[in-house]
């Protein structure tokens, strides 16, 4: 089971401030998301390491929608994935941003 690494960068986001946050667990069908502050001129960088190969197009679309939802810039997001569905990925990304901003419910 070889891993696949994917990288995305979205420019033009609104810099958000917060504290490094990690949500989720790297277990089957799940993922962990780490959000860190980073000086990226308003960009959002995302790096995904996934055990499920061949879903690059889907990740691209999920991440694009995520960025469109939050427009969050100056953050670096690192994802360890163990075959989560897009629904779970989106949910965790949203939770991670909320936690980063300090208002996770």
């Amino acid at each position, binding site marked *: 089971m070889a891993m696949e690494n994917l990288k995305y960068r979205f420019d033009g986001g609104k810099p958000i401030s917060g504290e490094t946050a990690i949500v989720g667990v790297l277990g089957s*069908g799940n993922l962990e998301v780490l959000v860190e502050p980073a000086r990226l001129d308003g960009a959002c960088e995302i790096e995904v390491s996934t055990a*499920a190969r061949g879903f690059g197009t*889907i990740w691209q*679309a999920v991440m694009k929608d995520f960025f469109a939802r939050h427009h969050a810039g100056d953050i670096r997001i690192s994802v360890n994935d163990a*075959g989560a*569905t897009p*629904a*779970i990925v989106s*949910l965790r990304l*949203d939770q991670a941003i909320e936690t980063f901003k300090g208002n996770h419910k």
Partner: protein
Amino acid sequence: MIYPAEKIWDHDRQRRNRKLERAASAMGGTLRDKVVSSEMAVQLLESVIEPGDRVCLEGNNQKQADFLAQALTRVDPAKVNKLHMLQSVLALPEHLDLYESGIAEQVDFSFSGPQGGRLARMVGKGQIRIGAIHTYLELFSRYFIDLTPHVALVAAQSADAQGNLYTGPNTEDTPAIIEATAFKNGIVIAQVNEMVDKVPRVDIPGDWVNFVIPSPRPHYIEPLFTRDPAQISEIQVLMAMMAIKGIYAGYGVQRLNHGIGFDTAAIELLLPTYAESLGLKGKICSHWALNPHPAMIPAIEAGFVKSIHSFGSELGMENYIAARPDVFFTGPDGTMRSNRAFSQAAGHYACDMFIGSTLQIDMEGNSSTATLDRISGFGGASNMGADAAGRRHASPGWLKAGEQRRIHNPGIPRGRKLVVQMVETFREHMHPAFVPRLDAWKLAEFANMPIPPVMIYGDDVTHILTEEGIANLLLCANAEEREQAIRGVAGYTEMGLGRDLRMVENLRDRGVIQRAEDLGIDKRDATRDLLAARSVKDLVRASGGLYQPPVRFRNW
């Protein structure tokens, strides 16, 4: 000229009598009234089954006449062969062993469940001939028309020496099978868990039964309808919230059936919490055609449910059911009586809604659980997940669905059943639920079927619910809108990514597609804390200790 009196009108009865005489002499002194010892089961079958007979072997996805199934595999293929088997469900390995030895050659059935893979391989090798894959009601119906069994092998809880049967909570298919067999010159053999002096209640009168065999061990029952609440995900909670707010409340659904699965279990567990908080108690979900799902306990205890009629029972629910006769159908002995044929009919004609899951949906909304290497059949969804076009009586939900349909399909006022397919856009291991073409097509080709095995036809489906939202197909003006509505809730699947963004937004503006936020649902509220029970133990507690789950569902 031949006088009418000379024509023979009782060939079949004579044949049955010859079989019974053969059996009597084969059993010799071992026969006590109608009771045959289990050691003599194979000889009995060899004496009453003739080559080419239609043999109905009882077994659904719950109760199985497993001892008789094994006995049938042990008959001498030189004496008993080329049988035409009739079965609700092909579930046990023995069911397929029959074809390898030549004892049987053809089958008409409804569902194949765990044997679906092997069945597909055997069909591929030409070892087995499938007449047709039916819905349950269809198959039972044909027992009374052109597929009447010559011999029925059934399972009961207990019997007395006269052959009166007590089938108890898991009565299931037995009455339908025996009715067709006993009154058309067939022979009925029942395996029973125990012999008693007097059965607790007579579910099948003794004079419809020819032989009873005390089985060396109780018949197998699969606890198929038990879902451990611990395994319900937050995504399923979100979908359940959308179902309740967007569909149950919207149509005031009072009479319904739920498919098996965690999606619908989540809905059941949200009734006393989320639905209650929306003020829906008494307004939705009062009458059910449903197996006694343990996940229903909190809703029943909360007073949501007025009645439940069941296809079969569920292991561990016996005491709970017996203690809730206002809700369940129970006999004078206090235990439940189920009946699959009646409950299927009830689900088809008397329910306003069916909601269930599937494996694949195409762009017309057709859905199927058949995959390339598995012939799985249909289970109960096909009859309940079809509009009852013959229905006449009105109810608010049925009328509203009919009105919505008439917006683009004008015609004389009539209602419409709500048929809801509830799926996550991806199943586990990233298998997409939305596909351009159902695997059923390839399966039909491979197995030489006249039509692809579709579980629920697209024109019967009214709503598709995913974590992305609800698509109301009743409101679609044409096939193109319908396709875009489906794509609009297909998320990141290839079908979803291929949607026409502008059209989908337009459909959303018109309420054809409703996302969680359109329904006023905050996704962050979708946590497992909303579940009325988060574990099987919670269910036991909710039942006041009456529910006794099978050991495999315990974690305490």
